[in-house]
């Protein structure tokens, strides 16, 4: 992929919002790949955690907003625990979800849950899931 970089495109408004919401410095990442190697959900992702941060470094935020990955991060903190640069990717994922949901609304279909599921599943799953996937 060929990308033309400039100071403006790299520091575009979306990148600034990611940094503001997540409190993480994107440029600290040196692409070692530890986060992607240890991510337990990587098998289901369309972009690896390390790719998410690389795209963001280059100012290419749109593909991230459209990715499946941001909805699959379970905030398990494995990447954060292992990152040699101390970057909390789960916060970057949350920032990306927030940017999408502030514009498009919640990202969950409550009606898809059957009444049986509602009765059997732990409260924790619903409250946790609903908070992650709704605004």
């Amino acid at each position, binding site marked *: 992929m060929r990308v033309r970089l400039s100071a403006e495109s790299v520091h575009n408004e979306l990148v600034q919002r990611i940094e503001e919401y997540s409190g993480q410095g994107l440029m600290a990442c040196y692409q070692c790949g530890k986060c992607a190697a240890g991510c337990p959900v990587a098998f289901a992702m369309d972009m690896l955690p390390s790719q998410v941060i690389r795209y963001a470094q280059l100012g290419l935020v749109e593909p991230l907003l459209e990715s499946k990955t941001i909805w699959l991060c379970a905030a*398990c903190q494995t990447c954060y625990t292992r990152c040699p640069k101390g970057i909390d990717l789960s916060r970057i994922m949350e920032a990306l979800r927030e940017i999408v949901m502030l514009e498009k609304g919640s990202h969950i279909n409550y009606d898809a849950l059957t009444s049986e599921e509602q009765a059997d599943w732990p409260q924790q799953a619903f409250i*946790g899931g609903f908070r992650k996937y709704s605004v």
Partner: protein
Amino acid sequence: MKVSYFPGCTLNTTGKGFDNAVRASAAAVGLDLVELPDWNCCGATYPLIIDNMLELAAPAHVLVAAQQEGSILTTACSTCYNVLKRTNKFIQEHEEERDRINTFIEAEYAGEVEVKDILHMLRDDVGFEAIADKVQLPLKDLKVASYYGCMVLRPPNEVAYDDPDHPTSLDDLVAALGATPVDFAHKNECCGAYLAVKDESITREMVYAILRSAQNAGAEAVVTNCPLCQFNLDKQQAEMRKSYAGYQPVPIFYFSQLMGLALGLETEDYGWERHYVDARPLVQKLLEGAS
């Protein structure tokens, strides 16, 4: 020793068996859990957006309630522990944000309470040796895989009281109960948490990796301290039997259920009927082995 206890929403409902077992087995080893009056939900996830003070209001409110009761707040739900512990640390370290939260919930709280996971208390305040001394029915020959999940380990600088890569507290407890802990690589790998509300098939693959690893190590039972891990590990096995040839289900216990059993307590209200993989045949075998 008396200590304030936060049950949380899950242990108050679908995880009632976990709750009953925790209260009874803690009491049996001298830890009196006094339920926090007027508690509210902790929010079930720690907010990751940097200035999300509103979502910290609920856990902060719990901490304020705990301050009225004593210096320590304990909980058995590892997610509640994670949320309350992180919130407390945040309040301790961020003066300006603390003021905003306090204004909102009409309190003056600066993080005075110590939030302690119940397993941490059993290890350090009661002591596993003291627990071993009280065992009536040693879980002899039972090979148990201890599954810690994420919430009591990560992020380590905020919540861990154990080694985040090689945790041992559950294994040591299980050993104190007379069982044989088995080591396996996935003991701290995420089970998928709330991903199941969106797509159970992803959770299933994650659970399969964990349980295959535990069974390859020889586990006959898995023990956990997280109600959501218990649910995911337990529930996904029915489908796993269909999708993975030759898969043999394994019962998923709360550590407190095994503790109550080994201490010789009455275990009928431990929620056995809620398990997806019936744990009762194994429980029966343990009881018979003892008599």
